[in-house]
């Protein structure tokens, strides 16, 4: 493995990270639309939510990637695997994140809802001033979990020819036959990315703790 191979792997890692970050961003957005459905007063919306989670979470990402790639391609003709990749991961992560958020909502103690009700707060204010900030805090650890998973899940996209860290490693291995060293470097890159997300998350957590939110109280 030459230094130029290392440089290639670094570039591929950057693409992995970009794919993951874009999917996390869109997935989070989609999840904030999905989670309220789980608490909707209409049965149909709740059923839709459950169905979505059931289908997306119950399908291997690999299969989902192939499905979406070919489905999108047959609708729109040629489609960039990068676009398809972000779409797949977005749908997948949205299901996981929506469940994380739902857990956060369920973690809000019932008496706090009573307080909101007795103060006569409008629903939108409850959502904005109380539910969202609390869910953000309760859901942070499992949310980071999903983010770390997203980085690793991006490796699946090599199957639809997204040139990212895993695909680039395979190319180099096929050329150099230097299996272990290339894989070790790839693993190291994955580790660094996941570690960075983890550190960032911990920092966020301790910042929240410094703002009086102990977490275990209420």
């Amino acid at each position, binding site marked *: 493995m030459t230094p130029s191979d290392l440089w290639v792997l670094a570039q591929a890692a950057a693409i992995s990270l970009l794919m993951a970050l874009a999917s996390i961003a869109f997935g989070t957005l989609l999840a904030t639309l999905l989670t309220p459905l789980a608490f909707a007063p209409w049965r149909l919306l709740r059923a839709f939510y459950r169905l979505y989670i059931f289908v997306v979470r119950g399908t291997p990402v690999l299969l989902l990637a192939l499905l979406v790639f070919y489905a999108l391609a047959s609708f729109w003709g040629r489609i960039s695997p990068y676009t398809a990749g972000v779409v797949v991961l977005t749908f997948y992560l949205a299901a996981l994140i929506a469940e994380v958020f739902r857990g956060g909502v369920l973690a809000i*103690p019932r*008496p*706090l809802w*009573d*307080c909101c*009700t*007795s*103060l*006569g*707060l*409008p*629903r939108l*204010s409850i959502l904005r*001033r*109380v539910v969202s*900030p*609390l869910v953000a*805090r309760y859901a942070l650890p499992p949310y980071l979990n999903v983010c770390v998973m997203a980085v690793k899940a991006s490796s699946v996209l090599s199957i639809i020819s997204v040139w990212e860290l895993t695909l680039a490693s395979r190319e180099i291995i096929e050329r150099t036959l230097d299996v272990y060293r290339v894989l070790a470097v790839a693993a190291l890159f994955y580790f660094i990315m996941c570690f960075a997300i983890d550190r960032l998350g911990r920092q966020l957590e301790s910042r929240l703790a410094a*703002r*009086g*939110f*102990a977490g275990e*109280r*209420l």
Partner: protein
Amino acid sequence: MIEIRGIRKSFAGVEVLRGIDLSIGAGEIVALIGRSGCGKTTLLRCINFLEDYDAGEIKLDGELLWYRPPETGARRRYPEKALARQRQRMGIVFQQYNLFPHMTALENVCLGPRFGQKLSAEAAEVRARELLTRVGLAERLNSYPAQLSGGQQQRVAIARALAMKPQVLLLDEITSALDPELVAEVEDVIRALTQAGIAMVLVTHAMSFAREIAHRIAYLADGQIAEIGKPEEILDRPRDKGLREFLRRIR
């Protein structure tokens, strides 16, 4: 001022309130006592409709609350917005303080006026500062609940309830969760409020405090008011057999 007529409430087939009638005058303080599970807290929660009731009516200043005046026979609630407005005429304080943990004391007190009553941020803050000062927390405006003692948290909760300028204050065992040495500071705040002429309904186990501040004490048993009267009548000359037994046990 408050007229409670024939309130009934069941949970899963068990009737917890079996026809409660109670009138509370303006500025009157009524204490609810009774064994645990007798329905005191449920009654309190029914008064401001945190708990729906199966039958009966509640009026505030002659105005029917929560359910529309019956025209056709079917009970119909008011829409959410009207319910919210009606709820704002009553403040409630819970046993477990229940402050919003992500907000400072000041923000906790501002929340209701600001977003429930649509006051400007400045006006809400002026009101909140004034109230927190009144409950002796002028120094702790920017503390988070986790940084406050139980007694301080409960005083913030009282200020939060008062911030809506309610006509009635509902107090649900507000000193029961406190360490003994913190009870006095919360009782002092309530004592000071009695001078302000605000009506109160308090569920309590603190008999001496009830005797001191309440105009009347109601003894609940089996979902009904078994006896009601002046504190000295209820506590010193109880007529109801269950009440005598209850008082003997807690002394």
